[in-house]
């Protein structure tokens, strides 16, 4: 009798937790769906850098930080998915530099964009991240030594990165981060649907589901 009481109570709590989280996730998905329909610019701002065809029907929005390790780890995976579905996916880069000082790297990246070397610079940053941002131990000096590999003019970047327009981009993105409740990087939304549980497989499934919905057959 005593054992049953404690056992059943424990089970009730576990079930309440499971159903509660299920319910919450459904509510969230609905809320984000509504936000994506009503307020699309929360996900894609005019200033946002994008990759992929203009006609793509699947928007993969990534809230990231060039100094974030998991973002770097996901980069090749996303390239792979995009290559496997040519013309169907559009990648939108948004910034979420949560760590102190991380916004400087966003500024460098945006300054490189002014030279038309955005993706090259991002590639170099991700590939060499363990050198200049190992476990968020930032060593900007090391990055400056590496950056010429992306074919950018370093002196120009040093000047451009303090452009108030860049600070404004970061400010807007951080405001959207708050509105969309992005807590960790990378934070993914596929056509406004948030990635509920994190992982390669889950992201792949979410993208695939949206591909199937947008491109039947």
């Amino acid at each position, binding site marked *: 009798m005593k054992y049953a009481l*404690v056992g059943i109570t*424990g089970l009730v709590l576990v079930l309440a*937790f499971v159903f509660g989280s299920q319910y919450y996730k459904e509510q969230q998905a609905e809320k984000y769906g509504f936000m994506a329909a009503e307020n699309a610019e929360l996900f894609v701002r005019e200033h946002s850098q994008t990759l992929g065809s203009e006609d793509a029907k699947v928007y993969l929005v990534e809230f990231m930080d060039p100094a974030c390790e998991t973002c770097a780890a996901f980069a090749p995976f996303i390239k792979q998915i995009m290559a496997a579905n040519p013309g169907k996916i559009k990648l939108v880069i948004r910034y979420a530099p949560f760590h102190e000082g991380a916004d400087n790297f966003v500024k460098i990246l945006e300054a490189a964009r002014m030279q038309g070397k955005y993706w090259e610079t991002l590639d170099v940053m991700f590939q060499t991240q363990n050198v200049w941002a190992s476990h968020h131990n930032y060593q900007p000096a090391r990055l400056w030594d590496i950056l010429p590999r992306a074919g950018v003019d370093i002196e120009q970047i040093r000047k451009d990165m303090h452009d108030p327009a860049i600070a404004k981009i970061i400010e807007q993105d951080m405001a959207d981060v708050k509105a969309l409740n992005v807590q960790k990087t990378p934070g993914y939304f596929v056509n406004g649907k948030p990635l509920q549980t994190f992982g390669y497989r889950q992201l792949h499934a979410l993208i695939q589901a949206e591909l199937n919905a947008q491109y039947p057959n």
Partner: protein
Amino acid sequence: MPSPDKTANLNWTLLFLCWLLVSVSATISIFFSSVLEYQPCVLCWYQRIFLFPLIFIFAAGLFPAFDKSVIKYALPLTIAGGLTALYHTLLYAGIIPENIQPCSQGVSCTEKYFELFGFVSIPMLSFFAFSTLVALLIILKRRTSQ
């Protein structure tokens, strides 16, 4: 004078209530952090450290029959948790100034996530749970030392 059987039963029920309270608190705490993704601050972590083991300590004291030594093992944890929660509540309410708080990095301990009925904060819920536990354990201690 109640019969010994009834006394033992009531003791068991009181301890069961303690167990129920910590189990519900722990479930809510994990729900906040893993589902609603409220990041626990440093002080929250200390309270969780005092809270989580109580589930197992209380459960061990319930079987096979009520064991009064559970009081001795559980009281230090509940008092420590209660004091941390009290400090946290005061900090949150602004009664203790925030600049002397130990958690400058990560999530601020005064970050507002949720307030039930507009004023019941998470630290307050924690303080309520811990002080109820202390009260229940003191009642049990009195009852068993007679």
